[in-house]
Each structure stands twice: as structure tokens, then as C-alpha cells.
């Protein structure tokens, strides 16, 4: 967690510029494994991309290139909507 700022270090009106802040990670919300992509089955339909509430489906242009596990909360919507079963929940790595 970043150090807390003094009042005279804050932006006017408490505005926040997205470029100035890194978002807190939410990957630790997952409790039932992490979604993992099978590129062999993926047909780049992009349904997982539009469904993901956490904008965690990573694209290279319009091609799926991965899942951002720093933000994925493990809701499994991507698993459910994928028409080819290309996403599966896999156990998290042991701590």
C-alpha cells in the first residue's frame, strides 16, 4: 500500500488522473482456482472479453493473448460463456 499523502500534496478537488495511479490488485479475491486459457481451443470470438467484469482478458490487437490474474476475481463467467471450452479453472499455485 502506497504511503498516505499529506493534505497539501493532494490534487485540487481530489481529482485522480488514471495515468498517475496503479490500481490495487484484486486477484486475491479468487477462491476457486484461476482461469487458464487453452490457446488450441480458442477461436478469438471475444465473448470472454466482453463478459469479463474486471477487464482481465488481455488482447493483442483483437487476438486473445492471456488473462490478467492480477485483476481476475474468479467469477468464472469466461469459463461459462466460452463456446469451445477453451478456459478452465485450474488450482492456484501453492503458496
Amino acid at each position: 500500500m502506497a504511503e498516505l499523502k499529506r493534505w497539501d500534496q493532494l490534487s485540487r478537488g481530489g481529482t485522480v488522473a488514471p495515468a498517475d495511479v496503479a490500481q490495487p490488485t484484486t486477484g486475491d479475491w479468487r477462491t476457486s482456482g484461476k482461469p487458464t486459457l487453452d490457446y488450441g481451443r480458442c477461436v478469438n470470438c471475444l465473448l470472454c472479453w466482453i463478459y469479463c467484469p474486471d477487464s482481465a482478458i488481455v488482447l493483442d490487437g483483437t487476438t486473445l493473448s492471456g488473462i490478467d490474474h492480477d485483476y481476475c476475481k474468479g467469477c468464472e463467467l469466461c469459463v461459462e460463456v466460452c463456446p469451445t471450452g477453451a478456459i478452465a479453472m485450474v488450482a492456484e499455485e501453492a503458496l
Partner: protein
Amino acid sequence: MTATLQEHPVLLTGGEAVAHAMRQLDPDVVPVYPITPQTPIIQTFSKMAADGEANTVIVNVESEHSAMSAAIGSALAGARTITATSSQGLALMAEVVYIAASMRAPVVMAVGNRALSGPINIHCDHSDSMLVRDSGVVQLFAENAQEAYDLMVMAPRIAEHPDVSLPVFVCQDGFTITHAAEPVTLLPDEAVRAFAGAYPADRSVLDAGHPLTHGPFAMPDYYFELRRQQTAALLAAHDVHVDVSVEFERLSGRCLAPYEAYRLDAAERAIVVLGSSAGTVKDVVDALRADGEHVGLLKIRSFRPFPAEALRHLLGDLHEVIVLDRADSPGGAPPLGADVAFALHGYATPVRSHVYGLGGRDLHPEAVRDVFLGCAPHYLGVRGDECLV
């Protein structure tokens, strides 16, 4: 209507005078909702705009709450924004007034001070301004139509100053000033335009290239610091007001500083007051001085930020300071009285407090005389409360 109204006084009500100031300022957006006694302001201004004398987008919103809300959206989009309200309208928008201050939206608002319900009453007192006393906005009080005009001309320069960037309310007594015609000297249109300049907005929600999030959600770890920063801006408004008033005096010959000291030289007792009653007090001061009484007046123009330092300097060695509040805080100290007493904490000067004029009850010179001479009840002129000598 325009070319002849320059440099010699014309007969205008306070409402009309403020409308002229708005015409000359030519704001980008005016979101507004009607309420007595502010209506002459928006009606006069609407006609001016309809005749092409102002190039303003007027938004006839469906409530005062929406007026201040639209004003925030407009001001944060880089548009010079002015609105007006009174009484229940100010009460309804009170939530948004606090937010406008916290979002640092430099909205200018004309307030026709009117009593808060209940009972419902359309006449003057200061309870509406006092309802948002703690909101963090600048509140300036005019003594007469001329001051209302002058303060409105000055207001955008104070509101939009980068050190401030806060709402500024220009308050004038409802009916007493808004509806009473007085001689008012207007500045030439070009002089006002040059004085006000352009709104120096350094950010805009219309600037997609520099996206900003406005109006955050703050937890206990940051709320206090965000409010503290906002308070610093309100305090900074004092010096900005002084600077702007110096510049305005060079332009107009009239001084609209945060306060006016009237015959305080060698005064033993002084009244502190806001608004049009200062005129009544001045008359009584003159009469009593002629009788050899050492009395004076400190008229506060900037109620927020409160000029505590100047007040201590001017009143700190008087025998008695008497505060007249046109608003009450039942069960506690009246607002202006509380500020004066707090400012004089540690000084030997006793502070006496009276409440007058609620719901448009006139303040008569005789009552002011009684106040100076020490025989007046706490609530001035209320039937049933007589001074028991």
C-alpha cells in the same frame, strides 16, 4: 438599454443591477430555477439574453438542486457559470453546495436572502445563507444595490482564481435590496469584460485527452485531508478578495474590501452586522456621534472567509462589541455572534448578541439606538419580549 447606462447613476433595483453585471460578464451558462425574491434577476437577465445582449446558454432546470448540479457540470467543463437562488431554493440545493465546494467548482451565485420556512415567508433574513455557512463557499454580503452590482462584477475573479476555485455567493437582502430602486453606477461594458477576463480553466471534463476522475469516494484515510485542502482554498480567498478589490477600486473608485470600518476611530462601542441594516446603523452612528457618543460600525462583507484578524485589530480594544444577527441558532449562539466572539477570544472586550429582522421584520433606527445605549432585549422588536430595565 445598454449604451446610456454607463458612468452616471441610473435607478435600478438590486436584482436589476445584478442582472446588468451578469449581462456584462456574459457567462457561458446560467442554469436557474425561479424563487422569490431572486426572480427579477433571472427574468431581467433572460430578457437581456433574448435580446442578444448576452450570449449565454440559459438552462431552465426543474429545481434548484438541479441548478447547482448543472452548474457543477458546466463549471468543470470549463464554462463560466452563474446562477441565483433564495431561501427554500438554497435549502434544497444545500447538499450540492457542499459538493460544489469540495469539487472546487467556481460557480458564482446571486442570493436574494430570504427567510427559511417555516412558516413560509418570502421576506428578508439571512437564515438561508446561514444554512450553508459551513459548506466551504465564499459568501459576500452587499449593503445596497451598488454593492450587489460591484460584488457580482468582482465575483468571477475571486471564484476562478487558481488559489481559490470555489463557489462565490453574492448575497443581497431580499426585497430590501432586490426590489428597491436605488441610484447605481454601472461600469462600461468593456471595462467589466476586461476586468473579468476569461475563465482561466486549467482542466475540463470535455478534454478526453486528459481524463480526470472528479468526485471521488474517500474513506477515513483521506476524507479529512481532502477537506483540509479545501479549507486552505477558502482561507486563500481572503487575500484574493483583497487583491481583486484593490484592482476594482482603481477601476471604479469604489472599495469593496472584505469589511468596512465606519467611524471606528476612538469608538467605545461598535455594532457588527451584515447586509442592508448596515445602512440603518450608519445613520444611527452619525446621530449618536453628533450627541457625543463614541460609537461605530464594522460592516462585514466577506462572511466566509470571516475576516477575524481585521476584526481583532479593529475591535480588540473597544469597551463593547454588539453583534446583530439576522438569523438565529435556537438553543445556541447566533452565527455572526459566534464568529465575532470566537475571533475576540482572549480579548477583554465583552461581546453582546442580538437577533433581529427575521422574516422581513424591519429594523428601525430607534431599535439600533436602544441597542447602542444598552436597553434592548436579545430578540429585537418581538412583541412579548420587551427590555426590562
